[in-house]
């Protein structure tokens, strides 16, 4: 076998990898959208009047957060069919990523809401604002900038966890690299390309999140330009 980097092989596999990259971005985007919504539900479930329900919800969040995403993927993918629910690998992957990161997202939301000073609530009470009005005009606009760094970090986090989807057969970037590598008995170029593609996507994304955080803070008057 030829050692060292082979450029002809790299060019040969590049189109395939580019298409798979689109799948990876799609998976990350859909997973993130689900996580944002699921996180909202977990947040609301923590604030119900029922103490038992709140406790069950908190333990569930704790359980999902402290077990590996990989086994959760296997669990959803292999166990659901036993109960007669057969979903495609894509759907299983999206559900699992949405649930897993939804628990993290609910913590981000909770932290942001608690980050808004209590006196703001008291002032609204004193001004006789309704709860909905208080949330919409006073609390949420202040909570949002606190949530932005966390929300952005998990977008990058989900993106970097999408390779796990290859283990249940979702045809994303890492899956394509493994397939190409196995077919040609060369793993050097495919896996290195995956690394480079991830770097070129996630570093600008992380920089964009940092800029967004700054912009929001400036527009809120927290830091000066």
């Amino acid at each position: 076998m030829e050692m060292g980097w082979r450029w002809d092989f790299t060019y040969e596999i590049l189109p395939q990898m580019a298409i798979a990259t689109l799948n990876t971005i799609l998976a990350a985007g859909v997973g993130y959208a689900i996580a944002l919504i699921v996180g909202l539900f977990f947040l609301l479930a923590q604030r119900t009047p029922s103490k038992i329900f709140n406790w069950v919800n908190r333990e569930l969040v704790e359980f999902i957060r402290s077990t590996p995403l990989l086994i959760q993927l296997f669990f959803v993918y292999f166990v659901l069919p036993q109960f007669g629910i057969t979903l495609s690998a894509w759907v299983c992957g999206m559900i699992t990523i949405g649930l897993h990161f939804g628990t993290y997202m609910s913590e981000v939301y909770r932290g942001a809401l608690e980050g808004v000073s209590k006196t703001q609530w008291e002032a609204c009470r004193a001004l006789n604002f309704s709860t909905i009005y208080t949330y919409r005009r006073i609390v949420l606009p202040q909570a949002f900038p606190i949530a932005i760094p966390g929300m952005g970090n998990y977008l990058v986090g989900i993106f970097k966890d999408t390779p796990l989807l290859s283990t249940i057969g979702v045809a994303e970037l890492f899956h394509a690299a493994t397939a190409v590598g196995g077919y040609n008995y060369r793993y050097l170029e495919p896996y290195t390309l995956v690394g480079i593609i991830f770097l070129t996507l996630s570093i600008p994304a992380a920089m964009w999140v940092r800029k967004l955080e700054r912009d929001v803070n400036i527009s809120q008057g927290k830091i000066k330009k």
Partner: protein
Amino acid sequence: MTYFEFLNEHGITLLLGTVTTVKVLVCSMILYVIISMIFGLMRLSKNPVIQGTATIYIEFFRGTSLLVQLFWAYYVLPFFGISLEAFTAGVVALGLNFGAYGAEIVRAGILAVPKGQWEAAYSLNFTAAKRIKRIIIPQIFPIILPPAANLTVELLKATALVALVTVVDLTFEAKQINSITWLSAQCFGTALLIYYIMARFALVPFLRWLEVLAARKIGKEKV
């Protein structure tokens, strides 16, 4: 087959896998703590070469996926004449990846030490090494331990990935049992439970204990 029969037959295998998982966790924990200390300090160096090296290292390992790094260490490094055993490759990849995250925690911790402490050390004419070693480092532990605890739980979860480079850990055994018996709910459910118990009732209490210890060491009682 009842769940009890399942445990009776496959429990030992899963426990043996758990032992490997613990081994991977402990080794990569030691590695990542050392790496994050070194690179966290390097990141604050005034020398642009040292600081640049640390920045490139951190951005590289935080920018790519852990799974990619693992596969790279196991399947690509042999191309360069470096053949690592699966266990070693797993520990090294985990240590390097989490070291990059840990370095940022250490950096933030050092920056959070009040400036007066630096100034006091200056005015007492401590050497640079002594300043860091005797004054600054002991004070960063209460600051960095809470985020480091989160990172360590993430590390425990990430050890599951080494199964994909053929390390025979808990995840690997669960997958193996699943492919023989097709009792997916039992084997993956048990694996999830074991990970949960390890995180919730062993790792987290241990890290909390470290936090209390660190607070007591510098005279700040933690309740």
